């Protein structure tokens, strides 16, 4: 199934096998210009493999990565900003030299490289450390250097594997605002993370991957629509009001004035509201908005078979 690919960066049906392990199976998603795309999934789900394939560091067995409609080639790959999962820097090389070297490898001239290093080390608050060896920096600062390395050549696409892991709250803020700024500047940004609250707050769209398959792709709201549209929180009537009401199932609550119910398909929510009012005053009757954490658990646990269609 190849969806119509119209995003700026389209990952189309990529599969990758390592020996007996099917690491990726028909992974498809798109990232649009100016969009921050959060890539979530458990350890070994395939996030890193996907990103490596986008970068051309690994080759896919099937499928392709397209950018503005044409296959990604080495010339574009050079213009992607990449932050690998396990940080990659020469431990004994000085920060400034290292960043200049990487910028030069991405094709910048000597003067441009110097200017870029000055700009980004300044923006990320590590300008004072450019003369220090990378290994002398704290892990958080090393990560800022790593981000500088990804940004130094003014990339047209950003692919960041776990950019937030191990950062303190200040650094998380700095990193978030840089990603947001880049996206606002029209650069598609993909990043993976285990910090679901952060993903929920920062991302325009989210892709959930499990066991090598995309099980859900969409905005947080779209994901919520998926199977929680019929879940309602009711505050007011004492527990027990729902007993005997047809077409609903109690799935949670506090055993007192709060009840969470799921309505069967075809059940009229107004009928349910009337049943609740019959039992006592209703102070609140509203659609439940599960946090991404719960969505994630639902999606991952229900397995790939229950995956939503990739939005066209």
């Amino acid at each position, binding site marked *: 199934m190849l969806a119509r690919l119209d995003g700026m960066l389209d990952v189309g049906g990529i599969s990758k096998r390592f020996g007996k392990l099917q690491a990726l199976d028909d992974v498809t998603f798109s990232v649009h210009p100016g969009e921050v795309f959060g890539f979530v999934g458990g350890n070994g789900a395939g996030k890193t493999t996907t990103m*490596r394939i986008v970068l051309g560091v690994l080759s896919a067995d099937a499928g392709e990565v397209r950018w503005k409609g044409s296959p990604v080639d080495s010339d574009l790959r*050079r213009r992607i900003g*990449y932050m690998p999962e396990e940080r*990659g*820097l*020469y431990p004994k090389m000085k920060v400034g030299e290292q960043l200049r070297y990487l910028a030069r490898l991405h094709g910048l001239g000597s003067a441009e490289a110097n200017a870029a290093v000055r700009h980004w080390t300044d923006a990320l608050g590590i300008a004072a450390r450019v003369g220090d060896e990378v290994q002398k920096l704290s892990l958080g600062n090393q990560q800022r250097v790593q981000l500088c390395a990804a940004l130094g050549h*003014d990339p047209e696409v950003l692919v960041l594997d776990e950019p937030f892991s191990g950062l303190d709250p200040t650094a998380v803020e700095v990193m978030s605002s840089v990603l947001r700024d880049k996206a606002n500047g029209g650069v598609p940004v993909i990043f993976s993370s285990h910090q679901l609250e952060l993903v929920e707050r920062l991302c325009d769209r989210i892709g959930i991957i499990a066991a090598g398959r995309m099980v859900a792709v969409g905005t947080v709201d779209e994901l919520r629509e998926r199977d929680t549209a019929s879940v309602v929180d009711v505050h007011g009537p004492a527990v027990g009001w729902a007993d005997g009401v047809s077409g609903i199932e109690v799935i949670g609550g506090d055993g007192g004035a709060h009840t969470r119910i799921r309505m069967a398909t075809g059940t009229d929510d107004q009928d349910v509201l009337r049943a609740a009012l019959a039992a006592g005053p209703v102070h609140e009757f509203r659609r439940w908005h599960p946090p991404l954490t719960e969505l994630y658990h639902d999606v991952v646990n229900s397995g790939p078979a229950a995956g939503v269609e990739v939005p066209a």
Partner: protein
Amino acid sequence: MSAPLTARQAVLLVARRELVTQVRSRSFVIGLVITLVLFGGVFLITGYISSQASSKTLGVTAQAAQLRPALEESARAQDIELTIREIDAGTGRAQVADGELDALLTGEPGGYQLLGLDTVDSDLQAVVTSAIQQQTLTMALAGTGVDQAQLAARSQLAVDTLEPVDPDAGQKLAIALVGTFLLFFSVSTYGGLVASGVVEEKQSRIVELLLATIKPRHLLAGKIIGLGAAGLLQLVILSAIGTVGALAAGLLTVPGATVGMFAMVIVWYLLGFFLYAALYAAVGSTVSRQEELGTVLAPMILLLIIPLVPTLNLLPNDPRNELAAVMSFVPFFSQVVMPARYALGVASLGEVLISALIAVIAIVVVVRLAGRVYQNSVLRTGARVTLREALRT
């Protein structure tokens, strides 16, 4: 705006980083100093040993003292500096025990005894044996009327050579051995640095970042060229100091042979280095951590040591040794054996060129295979990559 790098630019950028990093590193300077100290030490020790080796002190008891002229004659014939001290048996034993005497000779004709501490020096034993034989012979001949002078004259052996004896053979040997050590040292050190550099990039995962922008073969080529240049720089500095120093100090009086060997060492360093560096890089790329490197490099070290064996053990006494001659044409061995044979004057320039050509062909083949292994292995972390997996296209 950035422009794509050409292959040459990419290789040069990588090579420059490797060279600069290496030359600025403490290990580069330390390596230079240690090598110079080592060579200086070896020269001093060799000099000391050769000044010591021929001087022996032998104690003789009064009874055995009649052997003294024969002993002196025999020592002279065998080119051994012998001091003879007459002493009584008791004191002699004590002095052998103290190490003041190398051995003590007791007894009388028909029953001599040579006493050493825990072993009897073989040179000394040869001198004494020959003296006793001479004495016995003289005594036996005394009654027969044979003219001893005539007998001696008739026992002469004349030694001659087809080609003139090379008066500089000793110096050439010294040059060959120093060159051999330099080559072994440079190729193993800088080959090893290539391997650990590959593992460093793999372990720190920077290789992912690098390979997202340049091709694996450009990264590998840049690394090998950069480190090779650092090794070349070190080798040139060492050789230049050695050559100038030895000529200035009068240790070497053959500037032609010395400078010729200098050039040979440089050329063979390059041939040997590229061959081994490609292999080292391939082997290094199959492991993920520096700790695992030792295990996979052990066979490489062995491969490097093999050509040292004929060079150090066979060539000094037998420059035309056939095994060494064969090995001087075999890639992986030739970089050590051929320059030594050339320095000893037993290989012609033509032979050197043929051997170099074979080495170049080997480099082309090995670099291709190594490049394939490297590309297949460098992004795979975790378990060691097997050779079969690494070689598949």
